[in-house]
Each structure stands twice: as structure tokens, then as C-alpha cells.
């Protein structure tokens, strides 16, 4: 479908809605960052950037765009990895990062209501100060909650607590027409028609613009203990993961990490990791209400790990110790990125008992494809982050090898019963792989849903499928 080319008249009309020149970026005022996301593989500069402050502004801009047939791409902090916030068809980028107010902490219903631009790190801090807990914990803490909802972000506590979708109770959404609707509510149960709120979660800004979110909170666990477990070989470490899951102990996180990625992170952060006796580690986290309760909990897991050949179990039970470990873990993506010229990632998810098979496969791929491949991930929930690095390859060579590697990995994931993306979404970069992995009939239904919400296809076009 041909869109209207954004012109001076459109600019004037948008200015009339926003009426604040500091919040409208046009032509050369548009910073380069608006043309890409964090991974930067997809590039396109919008015609105009509008930094909205309230639902009414979003609604009016949307209504104008709908009537004028101008594409609109919503954007949070731009920390995505698949190009979902890149305005492929140009038009209007709707920056929601200034809508970052905490609207209500409802201690009776255990919910918090926020605007979409609230950063994950600010949300976590805010609720913890009130003795509450928002469990989803993606590594990128400067992401907005709107972005997290749009990708159904998972993060490191998914093993025990689930993902973002499990914590969204209600959403205020501006539809492509500009109409504002409320989906869900502060209710614990809901069997009232289609699960529209859940459909909105993970829709990557293609169905509506989230302008308000009510999130479910839990009481804050009083204590956490992490276990860093060195293994003599990587195979032994990863083979232990399914046994931990099977043991019915419920850690909040099960991560795996390897020496070379740890060393990248040490270089990147300029600080030392507290252990260097091994090439492969599992990192587990437990939470509970007392040290004793947690110790009882992890005893069983410690035993399994030692039986499987762990060299030791290292205990992190204070803020300082946790910081030394988790700061390193949190820096992996940036560290790998800074160790090479370019990279792309695979965010596959496989059934939990297949995680070792998937990781081992990605390791052997290094040799068959001929690139460096690094990985780390949420072993406990089957979601892996595997990075293919460009290093000194020529652009052509890189593009070919990357494509080969991706096809191999997505093919393997599918054969193991997995999916293309665990938490980063499809966006623009992974469309081809989603298409290959789903039944065409399912893609057709998705197209139908998109058309029902957005008959003119102006909201974040050319994404997902």
C-alpha cells in the first residue's frame, strides 16, 4: 500500500497537536539514534519524531496519521535487538520515553500503574522501596516497560516467575484509528471474551500504542542467594541443567556462562570476576524469606551438581558478592558486541530438556560455518542467546555465513520443538525465520488480526510477518 509522503503541511499539523517545538524533531534535527535500535542491523530514518507526553497527544497524532495515511512507529528506549522500532516506511516515530510517570501503587490489589516510558530499572527500584517485587528481569535495565510489554520480555527470573505477559493486568491502548481502549483490568481472573490484553503483549507495536500499563506485583522476597558453580567441562555444566529442572527445586534463574565471555566482560567492565578456576559455569539464583529457608532449598541442587562433576559450589549471599557476579552477567551482550566488528544474534527457545543439545549444536556450528560464535543464556528456561561474530570477514562473506548459521540454528531449534524468539521478538530482522518456522495458516490468522486492528496498515508496518 502506498503511504502519503510526509510534507510541510503534515509537519505544521503535527506541530499544532504537540505545540512544543522541543518535542518535535524534524529533518536535520532527528538524531541518528532514531534510525536504528541497539543491535543496529536495520536502518531507516523517520520523517519526523514526536515525543509524546500524554495519551491525548498519542491519540491525536495517531488519528491524524490514520486519516492522512502516514505510517507510525512507536519507540521506547530503542534497546531492541530485531529492528522492531525502526521506521521501515519512514513517516512518524512516536517516542514514548517522556511518558515515564508512576501513576498509582495499589497496595490493596498489589498492582502498580505506570506510563510506558518508565524504565525497567526505575520500576524495580520504585516497587522495591515499597517492599514489592516486579519479577520480570531482562538484562537490559534501561529498556522501557512499554518495550518490555511489546516484546513480552522474559529475563533471568523466568524459570520461577514467568515472563512479562504473566504480570500485565491491564493496558490502555491507542488504536491505529486514534481511539483509546482499555484492555484487561485489576482483576485476578478474567474470562470475558478474547484475551485482548494478552494479544497486545508481544505484538511489537503493530496493533496499538500502549499508553498505560497496570502490572501485577508480588511481595518482595526478603533474601536471595546466588550459586556460582564451576564445572570441569562445558558439556558437564550444560548437561546438569535438565537434572536441576527435574529435581523440582525452583531457582529463580539458571544461567550458563563460559570463560571466554566472562573475560570479554572483565575487559569491558574493567573489573574482575570472583572466580577463574574453570571454563564453564552455571549460575543459579534462589530467593526466599530467610537464609535458612534458601539453604534448605539449594542443598538438593548442590548435591546434584557435585554428583555431575561440579568442582565446587560458590556462594554469593551479600550485595557486594552479587554485584561482582551479576554485573558481569549483565554486561555480556555489550561485552561481546565490543569484542567484534559486527554481530547478529539468535534468541531461540527450546524445551528445557533440550537446552544442552541446542547449545552443543551451536558450538559445533563454529567450525562448519567458519565464524566465531559465542553464547550465554537462560539455560533454565530453554532460551539461548547465541551470537554470530563478524570479526574480519568481508561484508559479503559475513552476510552469507550469517545466513547459513541462522538457518542451521533455527532449523535445529525447530527440530527440537522450539521457537524462533524467546524474548527479543521478531521485529524486522527475524521475519524470514518466523515465516519458515510457522504453519502458513497461522501466519494468515496473524495477518487477519493485524488487519482487524489496523485496516490501513499504518502502525509499525512490515514487522513480524
Amino acid at each position, binding site marked *: 500500500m502506498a503511504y502519503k509522503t510526509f510534507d510541510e503541511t503534515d509537519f505544521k499539523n503535527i506541530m499544532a497537536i504537540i505545540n512544543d517545538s522541543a518535542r518535535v524533531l524534524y529533518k536535520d534535527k532527528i538524531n541518528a539514534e532514531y534510525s536504528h535500535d541497539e543491535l543496529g542491523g536495520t536502518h531507516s530514518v523517520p520523517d519526523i519524531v514526536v515525543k509524546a507526553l500524554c495519551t491525548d497527544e498519542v491519540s491525536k497524532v495517531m488519528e491524524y496519521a490514520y486519516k492522512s495515511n502516514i505510517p507510525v512507529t512507536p519507540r521506547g528506549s530503542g534497546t531492541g535487538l530485531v529492528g522492531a522500532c525502526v521506521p521501515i516506511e519512514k513517516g512518524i516515530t512516536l517516542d514514548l520515553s517522556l511518558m515515564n510517570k508512576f501513576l498509582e501503587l495499589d497496595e490493596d490489589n498489589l498492582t502498580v500503574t505506570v506510563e510506558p516510558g518508565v524504565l525497567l530499572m526505575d520500576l524495580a527500584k520504585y516497587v522495591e522501596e515499597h517492599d514489592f517485587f516486579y519479577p520480570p528481569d531482562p538484562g537490559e535495565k534501561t529498556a522501557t516497560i512499554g518495550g518490555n510489554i511489546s516484546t513480552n520480555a522474559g529475563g533471568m527470573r523466568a524459570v520461577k516467575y514467568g515472563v512479562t505477559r504473566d504480570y500485565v493486568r491491564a493496558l490502555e491502548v491507542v488504536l491505529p484509528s486514534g481511539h483509546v481502549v482499555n484492555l484487561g483490568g485489576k482483576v485476578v481472573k478474567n474470562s470475558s471474551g478474547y484475551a485482548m490484553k494478552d494479544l497486545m503483549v508481544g505484538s511489537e507495536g503493530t496493533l496499538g500504542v500502549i499508553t498505560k500499563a497496570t502490572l501485577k506485583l508480588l511481595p518482595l522476597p526478603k533474601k536471595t542467594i546466588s550459586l556460582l558453580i564451576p564445572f570441569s567441562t562445558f558439556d558437564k555444566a550444560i548437561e546438569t541443567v535438565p537434572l536441576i529442572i527435574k529435581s523440582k527445586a525452583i531457582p529463580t534463574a539458571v544461567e550458563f556462562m563460559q570463560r571466554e565471555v566472562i573475560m570479554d566482560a572483565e575487559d569491558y567492565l574493567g573489573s574482575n570476576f*570472583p572466580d577463574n578456576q574453570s571454563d564453564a559455569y552455571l549460575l543459579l539464583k534462589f530467593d526466599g524469606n530467610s537464609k535458612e529457608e534458601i539453604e534448605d532449598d539449594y542443598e538438593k541442587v548442590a548435591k546434584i551438581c*557435585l554428583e555431575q562433576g561440579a568442582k565446587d559450589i560458590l556462594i554469593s549471599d551479600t550485595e557486594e558478592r552479587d554485584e561482582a557476579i551479576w554485573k558481569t552477567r549483565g554486561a555480556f551482550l555489550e561485552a561481546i558486541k565490543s569484542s567484534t566488528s559486527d554481530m547478529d544474534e539468535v534468541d531461540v527457545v527450546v524445551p528445557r530438556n533440550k537446552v544442552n543439545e541446542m547449545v552443543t549444536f551451536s558450538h559445533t556450528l563454529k567450525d562448519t560455518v567458519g565464524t566465531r560464535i559465542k553464547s550465554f543464556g537462560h539455560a533454565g528456561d530453554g532460551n539461548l542467546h547465541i551470537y554470530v561474530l563478524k570479526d574480519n570477514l568481508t561484508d559479503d562473506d559475513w552476510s552469507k555465513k550469517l545466513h547459513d548459521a541462522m538457518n542451521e540454528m533455527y532449523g535445529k531449534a525447530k527440530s527440537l520443538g522450539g521457537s524462533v524468539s524467546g524474548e527479543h521478538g521478531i521485529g524486522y530482522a527475524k521475519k524470514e525465520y518466523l515465516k519458515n518456522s510457522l504453519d502458513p495458516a497461522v501466519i494468515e490468522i496473524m495477518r487477519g488480526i493485524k488487519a482487524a486492528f489496523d485496516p490501513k496498515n499504518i502502525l509499525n508496518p512490515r514487522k513480524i510477518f
Partner: protein
Amino acid sequence: MNIIVCIKQVPGTNKVEVDPVTGVLKREKVDSKMNPYDLYALETALRLKEAHGGVVKVISMGPPQAKEVLKEAFSMGADDGVLISDRAFGGSDVLSTSYTLSQGIKKLDGFDLILCGKQTTDGDTAQVGPELSEFLKIPSVSNVTKLIEVTNENITVEMDMQNTVEIAKINFPCLLCVDKDIFQPRLPSYLKKMATKNKEIRVLSLNDFEDKNTDNYGLNGSPTQVQRIFPPESNGDHELWAGDGKSVTTKLYDKIKELKFV
């Protein structure tokens, strides 16, 4: 090398509240842990032992529950632990604490080196280490950020002073207060924890000391007293600058330079 490491049990979080009326730290319901600075001292000791052989003995002064931090030190690799504990030591200030520690250390079987953390997170005076060395009549160096050379007779260290970095060679026996980040402290080991679960901790009380005069200990032996503890006023000082990228960058650089960050 025979090394003694002084460690202290402190509140487990830096979010301890001060009762605004009584000015007393609200310690109830707060977990405790080893003073984070002491972890650097212990790590330094364990590395010296690994490189040069010897024994690492940890010593703490406090109530009976302070045994927990000694046990934690065992799970990090310390060989032996001693708790100095007596009701008569309650309310000690830095001088009295240092004196008490010196009396306890005199009852042990000698040492080549005493290592202390730079300061504690609950007292923050950074005085106990140097005062302890005075009572023991041995030399001491504070703010140690690096070990340069270790021989049978002496140790050469780098210390980070306010305006200078100084290198000192110091003969054994001596005392060093090490700074944060001299080494990344290792994590406690579950295997060592299990192996030392029932390990005995020697307790020394006033009766074991050479000097049994209660006037020299606890509140009696403390020339300083805390008048008032209060939460510091929060400081929201900030400057706002406007201008183009270049002028603001220059300003920022000048400011960082003025504040000695570069």
C-alpha cells in the same frame, strides 16, 4: 608465613535506618555479614598463603554470634579462627577495641603479618588497624592498594595517599590495612563450608588476657563516646548547563578536571 586477619561482623545491608529519636542504629531484623573491606584483607592473606605457604588465622571481636563471620572465613579458606568475646568489652571505642585486639593477639602463637580492611562499613573510622599496630609496637602501612614484592624478611607495597602514590618496604612483623579492590575477593565455597562445619573456634575472654584490669576495656576504657548518631542530610547539589554540544563538553571536561577525576 603466619598471617592474622582481623575481621568484623557488620549489618548485612547499608540501608540500616537510624532511629531519629534515640539516634541508635536499628539493628534488629537486619542480617549481618562480614565487613566488606575485610574481605579484601582476607583475600590478600589467602593469596599470600597460596604463593608463599603458611597459615591464615582470622580473629574477630564481638558477641558470640560473631562466630558466623569466622565460619564464613573458613569457607573462603582460612585455617583457624579466634573470637574475642566478653561482656566487659561491650561499648568499646576504637582505642579500647584496638587494645583488646592487641591483648588477644598476644595470646596467639606469634605472627609475621597482620592484615586489616581499610575501615568498617558500620564505624567507618579506619583507626583500629593503625592503633592495633601501636599497641603491638610493630610498623603499619594503610591504604595499601598493591603488593609489589614479598621476601622472607619484608614486604614492599604500594599505598594510595591523598596526593601521592607511595611505595614502602616494611619489615616483618608488621600490619597492613588494605584498600578496596586490592584483589577481587573469592566467594565462599560450599565444599569448604561443609568440611569446616564443626571446626572449633577458640574463644578468648578477659580472663585469658595478660591485662585483666576492667578499667582498660569496654566503656571504661573508651575515652571517646558517641554523642549523637543521625542520618546525613541528603545532598541534591547539582548544576544545570545549557549550550551547544561543544561548549557543554568543554565545560564538562573542565569540571571533571577541577574535581580531579582526570
